[in-house]
């Protein structure tokens, strides 16, 4: 038996140059983000911070996916590293107030990884649901 996709609200925070470009390519192919996913674009992963992630949860998101450019591909050189470090800082705060670790995920990507992006969105759900879905 396969469980259906999780359609609870999700926020996708990502760099315009990687995730944003990937979404544009997907749109050309007629594919779009699921309706329950809100896209929040930043000009560089380096501008993503704890507050942005916490505000995403405050606005009603049950899950947040943070995406920045792959190592070595950041136009600002260290944007991806900063995005990762600040995502971990937000994770730490969320864990202190009882949020499960799976609710926040960080990935790096290139503009040609739109399919991977859609897969990560699909995978971002409670571990129990994942195991049922994967079975």
């Amino acid at each position: 038996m396969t469980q259906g996709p999780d359609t609870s609200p999700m926020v996708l925070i990502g760099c315009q140059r990687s995730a944003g470009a990937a979404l544009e390519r997907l749109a050309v192919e007629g594919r779009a983000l699921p309706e329950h996913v809100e896209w929040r674009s930043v000009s560089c992963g380096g501008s993503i911070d704890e507050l942005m992630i916490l505000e995403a949860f405050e606005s009603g998101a049950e899950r947040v996916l943070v995406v920045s450019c792959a190592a070595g591909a950041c136009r600002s050189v260290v944007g991806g590293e900063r995005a990762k470090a600040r995502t971990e800082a937000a994770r730490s705060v969320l864990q202190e107030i009882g949020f499960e670790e799976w609710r926040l995920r960080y990935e790096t990507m290139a503009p040609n990884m739109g399919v991977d992006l859609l897969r990560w969105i699909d995978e971002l759900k409670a571990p129990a649901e994942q195991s049922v879905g994967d079975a």
Partner: protein
Amino acid sequence: MIVAERKPIPEILDMVRHAASVAVVGCDTCVAICMAGGTKEVAVLSAALRLAAKREGREQLITEACVERQCEEEFNEPLVDLLATHELVLSMACGVGVQTLAEQYPSAIVYPALNTRFMGRPEELGTWSERCLGCGNCVLHKFGGVCPITRCSKNLLNGPCGGSEDGKCEVDPDLPCAWQLIYDRLAAIGQLERLWEVEPPKDWTTSRDGGPRKVVREDIVP
């Protein structure tokens, strides 16, 4: 500057959970520079408290505010209405700021959200280290500008001890030996002869031994 760190959030929640309304008040001076209690950190903690309240099914009003310098009353004057309308004030200032708010607004319940750590300086982005113990009788001129009271783990005025090895401290091998730093600095400025001077036991009466300290400038006091 004064260096502080945010308390663990569960500890803060234990302090504020019962309150219907909480004003989170930051300070945009020292604790903003060490990224512990400025406007940004107030926003982060407030968001976390709101999320925690929602998750625990509690109704709680969290209001954010920040002043330029919480340790001086005139900067806190704009807070009068905010403090009067909130059950509890969570100060993100150092211990001085927390006590200033509490003294200035006696009817307000003011709790600390930070642990005040020390007087220090930023070494690099995200790293601060202690430089001054506030002993009240500065001797930096004798030690090449390196404070043996603060930077030697044993506070030795006539060092180094036998545990200094390869320029590192035996208490913590990640720490430079303060006396190695003193030697290197005195050598660099041509004052190695100072090391022949034996420093007498320190008079600690200017430090905390005399109780809480006060500085009074008679020429300024109204």
